[in-house]
């Protein structure tokens, strides 16, 4: 199924929640959706017979300077097609509905995105840091991140 067809399907089902599709040279085509409806749209993508995106290949947090974002790379093992979904949330209130119940692999990926970008995944059962120490402060992959002077008496920038 091509990206146009998937976009049409989603637009028909969810209307205004599907914001735009981008097909640009050098860009893998992606669909931008509004953050409120993430779980419904993902369930739809996972369960519809002709879509069957059963495999969440990658979930990446993003810092677009003014806003934060999440990028989902989905794949269907049955139909062998891919789709990229993007959402954006404001930096002051980075709340995203969690999809860890849709694909269980999202559990750890969302923890990583929280750890690195401070994205709050609403509905995640165990949203704690995963890669940095549990008591680390700040979110390292944000563009405006300043690393601390010291951590438990250890000098951080060595």
């Amino acid at each position: 199924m091509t990206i146009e067809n998937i976009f049409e399907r989603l637009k028909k089902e969810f209307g205004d929640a599907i914001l735009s599709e981008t097909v640009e040279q050098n860009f893998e085509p992606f669909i931008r959706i509004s953050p409120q409806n993430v779980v419904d749209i993902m369930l739809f993508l996972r369960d519809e017979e002709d879509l069957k995106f059963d495999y969440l290949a990658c979930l990446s947090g993003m810092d677009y300077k003014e806003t934060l974002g999440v990028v989902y790379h989905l794949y269907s093992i049955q139909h062998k097609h891919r789709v990229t979904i993007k959402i954006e949330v404001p930096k002051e209130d980075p709340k995203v509905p969690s999809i860890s119940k849709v694909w269980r692999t999202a559990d750890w990926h969302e923890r990583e995105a929280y750890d690195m970008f401070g994205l709050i995944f609403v509905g995640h059962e165990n949203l704690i840091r995963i890669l940095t120490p549990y008591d680390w402060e700040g979110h390292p992959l944000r563009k405006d991140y300043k690393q601390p002077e010291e951590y438990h008496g250890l000098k951080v920038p060595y």
Partner: protein
Amino acid sequence: MTEKRDIEIDFGQVHTERMRLNVGPQHPSTHGVLRLEVELEGEIVTDVVPHIGYLHRCFEKYCENSTYVQVVPYIDRLDYIASMSNEIPYALGIEKLMGIQVSERIQAIRTVLAELNRIASHQIAVATFGMDAGAFTPFLYLFRDRELILDVFERLSGGRLLYNYIRPGGLMRDIYPTFVSDVLAIVKQVRETNKEVQNLLIDNKIFIERTINIGILPADVAINFGCSGPTLRGSGVDYDLRRAEPYLLYDKFDFEVCVGKGLMGTLGDSYDRNIVRMWEMEESCKIIEQAVKLIPDASEDVRASIPKKIAPKGEIYTKAENPKGELGFYIVADGKNKPYRLKGRSPSFSNLSVLPYISKGYMIADLIIILGSIDIVLGEIDR
């Protein structure tokens, strides 16, 4: 899960308190600095909580502050026992963004190297899995043979583990004259040793009894947890990027995608995950034999199409079938000489996240077997 076990344990009236046990982070059977917080009821595992991040070194932050060429050595350090394979998706992604065409000879060399590295990685996986189950001899045999592969890589790149050899647009330098005959000699040796390992380890009754029906991972669960590589194929799912979305020259070769069949026990148990690796080594040998025929004798300037300046603009999710599964890089390039964002999607990260699900209800000694059968490398989990 528990009802499929052969051994029934009757605890009778004995009341035990649940115990929390730390495995790792410096325990040999955790295959790296992984800490498992295990909750035990007697000897039965009731819960496992993996704590990762001991090897975290800000790979993605480093990449944002390095030029595209400087990123390659960091990528080597992800899955540090399959560095050649790691470099391939990154190189392919940058080439696609820049619109660079690489000659067939270079593609063939890359294919040979990727498959050699797959063999080397699976040798470690099978060897250490045997160690976890108590078999020491196959470990020595497999490590001896892996040395031959590392020797070839060392002659090519100068490094034994971290190569920085496959660059976006080409290779670091051309292969040496006896490369093809060396590789074919390795293939012969690998096949001989695998026969021995088959006899010594895989067909050994103790080993079979020790690994079957342990850590059963059903196919739908494996997909839902984002598993890939032998961990997914061991559950009988026919998903291999080399076949599903061929890259390099994989569409030209005749090879089989090995999936678990539940030969001895249940489909998707530890034995299946391990036997898939054994079969894949043979398939890799087949691919290498076909690929070396595509390497002409005449030497070529392998640096000819390496761009002088790499500053692409665009976005790509580039992926390849690594020994451990799907290694992907989500590259966001904004036209500068450094990536705006480079996210590494490592196979072991997703594969390890399934461990709590598949190890509940088994014994603590089986937990070590299950962990060994997933074949993780902490370098790419912690990044």
